[in-house]
């Protein structure tokens, strides 16, 4: 397969979508690198989305790619992938894994699929990490200050929430944010922010939307 057949490039709004058809990251990157070299002037100051489909990309590989792009004044604005390792690598580097346009284009399909799915993250998230998912997000670890977690559904944290969380981002007013220790820097449900006040929770809590106001209630009082 030649580089041309491994890579297609098309414009989406103010971005360029690079769709890779390689079976490994090396193949994908080789094609992207060649394209960037050949079109360096055209791509200056461009924002690109890299779609690697199900190819696994490690965080150091993605970091190298991001640095190479920066050298050519190109910004990787998102990475699309169905591979969980790739999604985690992008999240570690603060690169969004989904994009609002893509979600909007298939909103109904996504919301139906999202009902049955969840993303599980088995580690604490450090400052600079962005998790952006359409489905439920379950985190076994702490969410440090400087982390943003966004979901169209619920966000469940088996640990401390010290960063920002936005559940029900596409307008789901029934979405909740749960944590063993809920001390967020920012919290929104369906776009409505929690009135920030320094808190010292003593038990697991749930943030819910009640009459257009985000309220925090003890976990034990929740009944499904």
């Amino acid at each position, binding site marked *: 397969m030649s580089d041309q057949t491994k890579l297609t490039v098309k414009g989406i709004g103010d971005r360029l979508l690079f769709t890779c058809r390689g079976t490994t990251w090396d193949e994908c990157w080789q094609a992207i690198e060649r394209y960037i070299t050949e079109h360096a002037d055209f791509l200056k100051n461009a924002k690109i989305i890299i779609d690697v489909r199900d190819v696994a990309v490690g965080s150091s590989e993605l970091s190298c790619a991001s640095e190479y792009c920066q050298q050519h004044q190109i910004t990787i604005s998102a990475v699309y992938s169905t591979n969980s390792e790739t999604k985690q690598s992008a999240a*570690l580097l603060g690169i969004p894994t989904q994009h609002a346009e893509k979600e909007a284009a298939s909103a109904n399909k996504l919301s139906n699929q999202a009902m049955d799915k969840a993303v599980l993250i088995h580690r604490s998230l450090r400052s600079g990490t962005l998790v952006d998912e359409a489905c439920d997000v379950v985190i076994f670890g702490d969410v440090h200050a400087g982390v943003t977690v966004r979901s169209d559904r619920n966000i469940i944290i088996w640990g401390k929430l010290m960063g920002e969380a936005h559940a029900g981002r596409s307008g789901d007013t029934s979405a909740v944010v749960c944590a063993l220790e809920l001390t967020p820097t920012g919290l929104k449900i369906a776009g409505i922010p929690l009135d920030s006040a320094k808190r010292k929770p003593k038990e697991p809590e749930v943030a819910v939307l009640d009459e257009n106001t985000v309220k925090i209630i003890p976990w034990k009082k929740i009944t499904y």
Partner: protein
Amino acid sequence: MGAKVITVTSGKGGVGKTTTTANLAVALASLGYKVTCMDSDIGLRNLDVVLGLENRIVYDLVDVVEGRCRIRQAMIKDKKFPELYLIPAAQTRDKSAVSPSDMIRLCEELKPEMDWIIIDSPAGIERGFKNAIAPADVILVITNPEVSAVRDADRIIGLIEAEQKGPAHLIINRLNPALVKKGDMLTAEDVVNLLAVDLLGIVPEDENVVASTNRGTPIVLDAHSKAGQAFMNIAKRLNGEEIPLMNLEGKGNIFSIFGKRTK
């Protein structure tokens, strides 16, 4: 056996990376080891000043990378310790003059002749940081007990983990026991809980550090200074010794945690 490469980094500027690098280098040299410290803060060099060697610079790191001299020619011998060397950074260039692979190559060349190579990283998370951590065997993250410094340290630790260079070891610098007691400063335990990494040492606030830095004689050479003693203890822990954390209030050990062995 080749040298162990230690990178001292932080994310936030002004937390004490260069002071820590200089003091650990002098401490390890005083223990009889062959040490080279490398300033990777290209364009903003100051490790030479802290070590009191600024008047001896002929060649720098960029000269070595660009082939204008051999690595030995850029190594400045310390005045007190004949087995302590400094490779200074270039002041008139920027971080892009060196790549991560250059740093790996230089360290590989030095490893057979040294016991320790200590790299002083620039602040930030860009190219300079990536250059500094590329050859590292051990990464020390320096933070002050301040929320902003801790937040940046957390970001840096995440990037170190993403580059598969972890786990990082933490040094809390400029802890002021009096402020901690009044509740006006984060405690060491707060910082460790927030960052969830191994604590290698705590260096107390000490006004003598500023004077010693300006004189070019690292504080670790002052046997009466608590900060100097703390740096010496960290060097010994790096060397594999089990040294309890210092009592910063003057009575027994305030922490039950022990520094980790890394060698």
